C-alpha cells in the first residue's frame, strides 16, 4: 500500500488554514502579516485544538494551540472559551460596563472577538449558554473589583487562565439539569488540556503557557541564517524548575511519589494543565461527583481511578507562565506547536525550515567535491535529497503544512522522503499513535516594516 504524492498532499492539507491581516489603504499597519495553521491527527478523533482571533475591543491578536489528553473535551472547551476570558480580562472598565448593560437590557452585544477558524474548528452550540453565563459572572466580578488601574497583559493572561480552569471545575461540581450538558461538563473537567497562547499587540508579544506545548520565535541573523528563540518553558519532568515547584508545594514526605517515571504522580506528563480534576480535587469531592454523575461516567474506569499517593491535592494548576518579548525587525515569525512537533524536530531545524519557506531562499551550501572520494551514485543521491528539499517547498502554500511535511517525512538527511511520508500517513488508526502524536502548528508571520517603524518611534 502506497500513497501517491497527490494523496499525501490531500491528507496533509485537509486541515490547513491561512489568514492574512487585511490591508488598509494598501498598507498593512499591523505587526502581524498573517498566520498559517494546520493539524495532523494521530489520535482518532484528534485531541489537539487550535484557536485564533482578533480582539475587537482592545488591540491585538490571540493565537493558541491546545493539546488534550484523556479525550478531547477539555481541549475543545478551552479552545472555545479561553480567548473570551483573556479578552474580557483585557477590557477596560467602561467597556465591561457597556457590555453588561447591553446584556442586561437585551441590546446587541459589542462583538469582542473576530475568530479565524477552519471549517473543522467547531464550537459546541449546546454549551454556549452555560459558557456565556460563566463568562458573564466573571466580567461582573471584574466590574465589581474595578481597581481603576490599566490592565496589565501578563496579569490578564494569568487571571484568564486561572479563572477558566476554576469555572471548568465549578461547572462540573454544580452539574447541569440537562443530562447532555451535565455529562459534557464532567468530561471537560475529567479530561485535560495544555495551552500555549500568544497575544500580539504591536511590538508586544506575550506568551502564556501551561503545559508542554511550545512557542518559538524565528530570528533571521544578519548573515541571512535562521535561529530559534524559545518563548516558553515546558512544564514537564525535564524542567528542573518545574519539578522543584511541584516539590515545594507538597510535604517532603511525598517527594518521592510526586514525580515518577517523569510523570506527575507517575501518571501525567504535563505538570500544568486545564481540567484534570483528578489531580486537583480532594478524593471525597471526586467520589461524590462521580457517584452522582451519569452512568457513563461511572462506567469509566479511568475517571473512577484515584491516583496513587494522592494526599495533598491540588497537584496540578492551570496557571500559565507568561513571557513578554519586544518584537524586533529580525523577529520574522512565531511558531506555536503542540509537543507532537517538538518530539520530532529540533527547534533550530524548525526555524530554518520555516524561515527558508517564508523567504523562499535556501541557504544550502554549494557542494564541492574537492579532494574527497565521491562516486557518481553517492553524488546523485545527495543531489536528489537537496532537490527534494526545495521542491517540497513549492508544493505547500502553508508554512504549517510545510513544517508537518518535514516533521513526518524527514529522513536522516533532514530532507523530506516521500516514501517515509507515505508510510507514516497510511498507518492504520490504531497504530498511528504509536509512531507519532497529534501535531498542531500555528506559524505567525510578523511585519518587519511595521515593527521597525514602531521601534524607531520608541
Amino acid at each position, binding site marked *: 500500500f502506497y500513497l501517491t504524492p497527490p494523496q499525501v498532499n490531500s491528507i496533509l492539507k485537509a486541515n490547513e488554514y491561512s489568514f492574512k491581516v487585511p490591508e488598509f489603504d494598501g498598507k498593512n499597519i499591523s505587526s502581524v502579516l498573517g498566520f498559517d495553521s494546520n493539524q495532523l491527527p494521530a489520535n482518532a478523533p484528534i485531541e489537539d485544538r487550535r484557536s485564533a482571533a482578533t480582539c475587537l475591543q482592545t488591540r491585538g491578536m490571540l493565537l493558541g494551540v491546545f493539546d488534550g489528553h484523556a479525550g478531547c473535551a477539555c481541549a475543545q472547551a478551552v479552545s472555545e472559551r479561553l480567548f473570551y476570558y483573556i479578552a474580557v480580562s483585557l477590557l477596560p472598565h467602561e467597556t465591561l460596563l457597556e457590555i453588561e448593560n447591553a446584556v442586561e437590557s437585551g441590546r446587541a452585544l459589542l462583538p469582542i472577538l473576530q475568530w479565524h477558524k477552519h471549517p473543522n474548528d467547531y464550537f459546541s452550540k449546546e454549551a454556549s449558554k452555560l459558557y456565556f453565563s460563566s463568562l458573564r459572572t466573571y466580567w461582573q466580578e471584574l466590574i465589581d473589583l474595578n481597581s481603576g488601574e490599566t490592565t496589565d497583559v501578563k496579569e490578564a493572561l494569568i487571571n484568564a487562565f486561572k479563572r477558566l480552569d476554576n469555572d471548568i471545575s465549578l461547572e462540573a461540581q454544580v452539574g447541569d439539569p440537562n443530562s447532555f450538558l451535565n455529562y459534557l461538563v464532567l468530561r471537560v473537567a475529567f479530561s485535560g488540556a495544555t495551552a500555549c497562547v500568544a497575544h500580539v499587540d504591536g511590538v508586544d508579544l506575550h506568551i502564556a503557557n501551561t503545559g508542554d506545548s511550545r512557542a518559538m520565535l524565528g530570528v533571521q541573523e544578519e548573515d541571512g541564517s535562521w535561529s530559534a528563540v524559545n518563548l516558553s518553558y515546558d512544564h514537564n519532568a525535564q524542567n528542573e524548575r518545574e519539578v522543584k515547584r511541584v516539590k515545594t508545594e507538597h510535604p517532603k514526605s511525598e517527594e518521592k511519589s510526586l514525580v515518577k517515571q517523569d510523570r506527575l504522580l507517575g501518571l501525567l506528563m504535563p505538570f500544568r494543565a486545564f481540567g484534570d480534576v483528578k489531580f486537583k480535587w480532594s478524593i471525597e469531592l471526586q467520589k461524590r461527583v462521580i457517584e452522582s454523575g451519569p452512568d457513563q461516567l461511572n462506567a469509566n474506569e479511568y475517571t473512577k481511578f484515584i491516583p496513587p499517593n494522592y494526599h495533598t491535592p491540588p497537584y496540578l494548576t492551570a496557571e500559565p507562565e507568561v513571557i513578554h518579548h519586544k518584537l524586533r525587525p529580525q523577529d520574522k515569525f512565531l511558531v506555536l506547536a503542540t509537543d507532537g512537533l517538538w518530539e520530532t524536530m529540533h527547534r533550530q531545524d524548525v526555524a530554518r525550515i520555516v524561515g527558508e519557506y517564508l523567504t523562499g531562499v535556501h541557504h*544550502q551550501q*554549494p*557542494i*564541492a*567535491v574537492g579532494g574527497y*572520494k*565521491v*562516486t*557518481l*551514485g553517492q*553524488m*546523485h543521491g545527495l*543531489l*536528489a535529497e*537537496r*532537490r527534494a528539499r526545495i521542491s517540497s517547498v513549492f508544493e505547500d502554500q502553508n508554512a504549517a503544512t510545510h513544517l508537518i511535511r518535514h516533521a513526518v517525512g524527514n529522513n536522516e538527511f533532514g530532507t523530506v522522503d516521500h516514501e517515509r511520508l507515505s508510510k507514516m500517513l497510511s498507518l492504520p488508526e490504531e497504530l498511528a499513535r504509536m509512531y507519532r502524536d497529534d501535531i498542531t502548528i500555528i506559524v505567525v508571520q510578523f511585519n518587519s516594516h511595521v515593527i521597525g517603524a514602531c521601534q524607531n518611534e520608541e
Partner: protein
Amino acid sequence: AAGMFLRLLSDVRWQAANPKWRRMTGSQRSTSSTAEPHPVALPEQAQVVICGGGIMGTSVAYHLSKMGWKDIVLLEQGRLAAGTTRFSAGIVSTARHMSLELKMADYSNKLYQQLEQETGVSTGYVKTGSISLAQTQDRLISLKRIASSLNVMGIPCEIITPKQVAQLHPLINIHDLVGAMYVPEDALVSPANVSLALATAASRNGVQIHERTSVSHVAVQNGRVTGVETDRGQIRCQYFVNCAGQWAYELGHSGKEPVNIPLHACEHFYLLTHPLKEPLASDLPTVVDPDGRIYIRNWQGGILSGGFEKNPKPLFTEGRNQLEIHNLQEDWDHFEPLLSALLRRMPDLEALQIMQLVNCPESFTPDMRCIMGESPTVRGYFVLAGMNSAGISYGGGAGKYLAEWMVNGYPSENVWPLDLKRFGALQSSRTFLRHRVMEVMPLMYDLKVPRWDFQTGRQLRTSPLYDRLDAQGARWMEKHGFERVKYFVPPGKDLLDLDQSKTFYKPDWFDIVGSEVKCCKEAVCVIDMSSFTKFEISSTGDQALESLQYLFSNDLDVPVGHVVHTGMLNEKGGYENDCSIARLSKRSFFMISPTDQQVHCWAWLKNRLPDDSNLTMEDVTWKYTALNLIGPRAVDVLSELSYAPITPDHFPSLFCKEMSVGYANGIRVMSITHTGEPGFMLYIPIEYALHVYNEVMNMGQKYGIRNAGYYALRSLRIEKFFAFWGQDLDAFTTPMECGREFQVKLEKEMEFIGQEALLEQKQNGVYKRFTMFILEDHDTDMDLWPWWGEPIFRNGRYVGKTTSSAYSYTLERHVCLGFVQHFDEKTGEALVVTTDFVNQGEYEIDIAGQRFQAKAKLYPFSSLFTHRRRKDEMELSGYQGE
C-alpha cells in the same frame, strides 16, 4: 582545479612544438608583470590582424597562410588555446541538421585527421565514431533526416537498433531506446592541441603569433579598418579578424564605430571521472543522448559527460570584468538533472569516482548558428565567433570559409545562414541576448521540428496593426525581430500547446491555413506584410537610374509607374538579393526586398553606389505598413475604396500608383502580390495604417474578406513555383538556373554586375536547375511531411536537395522546390543540366529515409490557373522571407 587543467594539457608539448613562435613570445611566459617590456616588439604594420588564439583564430590564420597570405599577425590576450578552446570536450561530430554545418564539420574532421602528420604536433585525434540515441519515435525521425543528409554527402552513417547500440558500447542501458544513429568516422581530439597544431603550421607559413597581447579597440577611418590598438602598441592593418570568442561582442563594441556581434555566454558544465576499474578504451564511441540532454565520451579511461540543460545560466551579461573565466564555480545542484540522465543511460557508472565538474562558458547566438563574415558597417572587419559549443566541430571548416571570403571575396559555399549581416543592431541588446541564449542553449538538444519559432525576444518590431490582428486570433512568428502572422485561429477553435504541436507530420493548423488559402483563391484576403525591407533611392539627375542599371540585372529604365522584378547579382551571377523595384519618378525608385535583407542589402548597395551627394538612399522600412490584398475580389474592394477605376486596362499587373484609399491619400498601390494570385500590395504611411485596414475590412465584408497569414502565402507561392531568396535562391544561384532569364537584360547593351557569368551560362548551359516536384504517393495525413533539405533522387541516384516545400491546397498534393544537378555516373563530375535531363527522369524525394515518388516540373501548372490570371503579363517572382 589547476591540477585538472594541467592534466588536460599534460600531452601538450607546446613549448617545444614550434621554435619560431616560441621565440617570439619567448620568456614572457614566466613574466607576470606587465610593466616589463616584451622582447619581441609588435610589427607596425600587417595585412591582417587576427584577435584570438583559440581554435577559430588559429584556424583562420592557418587557412589564410595556406592560401598565400603571409603578412598576418595573431594576437592572444593570454596564451594560445587558453580560453573556451582549452575547456572544450573535444568531440568532432558531423551529425548536424544544417547541411552547411555538416560540411564544415566534415571538413574539420578530415583536416584534424591529417594535422598531426602535417605539423608534427600530437592532436590526440582518435576516430571513435558517435552514437546518437533516440528515446522517442520523433527523435528517431530527426536522426533519420540527418542520416539521409550524411549519406548523400558520402559520410558513412547508419540507423541502428538498440541491440546494435549495446554491441557498440558496453555501458549503455538500451531499454528505453527506440533506435540510434551511428556515425563511425566521428572523432575525438585534444582541442588545445589541435589549436596549437594549427598555430604551428600557420607560424611556419609566416604568421606572427603574439601571446599576452590584448586588443583594446580597432581603428576605423571612412568605414574601413585601418589598424589595431593593443596594450603593447599599435598595428596598422587592412583586415581585422575578430575571433575573440565570448569576448567578441565586447570587442565589437569597444571602438568608436561599433560592430554588432550578437552572442552571449552561458555556463556549461561537464563531468570528469577517474578511470573505470577496467579503463574504457580510447576508441569507444561518443554517445549523444539528446532526449536526456547529455553527451558522454571516453576520457583517460573514465568518462567526460556534459549536456545542455533546460535552465541555462547566462553570464558575462555586463561584460568581462565581473568574473574570471577560470574562477567559475562548480554547481552540482544545477548539474543534477544531467547526472540523473547519465546514470539512467549508464547505470554501471554509479560506483565511478568523480574527478571534477568543469564549468566552461560557451557562447551562443540568437539563432543557434555561428557568426562569420564581414561587418556591414566597417569594411575589412571580419568576424568568426559564436560557435554554440560546436567550435571544435566547425573550427576547421569555418576557418576555411572565412579565409576564402577574405582572399576571394566570397567563400566556396553559400554561407548566408551564418553571415553576420543576417543580424542587425536590434539583436545586440544585452537583455535580448541574455534572454534569447537561455532559450537557445536547451534547444541544442531539443527536437528540431519544422516551423519552430523562438519564444524569447519577441514583440520587438511590430506593425501598427499588431493589436488588431492579435485580437482576431493571429498566431505570430518572428523574422529579423519583426512579428508576422502565421495564420488566424478562428474564434472558438483552439490549437495544441506549444510543446504538443511539435510534429514531423500534418500540423494542427492544416485546415485553418486551408481555409485562408481558399479565401485567397475565391474571394479576398488581407495579409500584413510590413516587415519587408524598403529602400528609396533617388537622385537629382540620372545617377539613380544609371547606378541601379549596373547593380540590378533587369532593365529598370521603364516608364514611371512600372514595377520590375529583378535580381541583385554578384559577379558570378548569383542572387545577393531578389527584389521588386517601382519607378516612382524618373529619378526615384522604391525597392522592396525580403525582411532579412535589411542589413545585407544596405551594405551591398552602400559599398557599390558611387559616393555622390546627389544620390541618396534611404531605408524607409519603418515608414510604411504593407497590406497585401490577395484574391479575385481585391480589385472590387480597392475600387470601392478609392472611387478610381482599377480594371486591368487602367491598372495592369506590375504597376504602381499613388492613390487615396478611404480618407487616406498617398497610398502606394502596386499590382503585385508575391504569390502569382491577382491582387495588390498597399504601402501605407504608418499613421494611416489603422484607418486603411479598417476601411478595407469594412468594405471587404460583402466580398467575404478575411485575414490571412504567411503560411497561406507560402502555400500559394510554392504551388506557383515562386522561388524565394534566402530559402531557394542564394548567392550561388543565377537567374538562368531558376528559369528567370526573362528577368535579365542580357540582350541590351548595358553592363551590369554578373552579366558576364550569365552570358557564359547562356552559352554553355547551367549545372543545376530549379525544379518543382509534386509528391505522388504521399499521404498527407499519415506520412511525414517534407520540410526542406530533403535529398532528391533521379533514377535512384542523388541529384540535389529540396529548398522549400508546402502543401498545395489546390493540387491537394505536397509540392517541393529544389535544385537538380547532374553528376557523371563514373567520375561524379558535375555536368550540364538540360531540360531533357530534368524531364526524362523518375524522381523520388527522401523524407527521413523514406522515399516518395515525385513528378518533376520546370514550369508551374499554368493551365490550372490561367483562367484566373490576367492576360497581359505573368508575374513571375516571389519572396516573402519565410
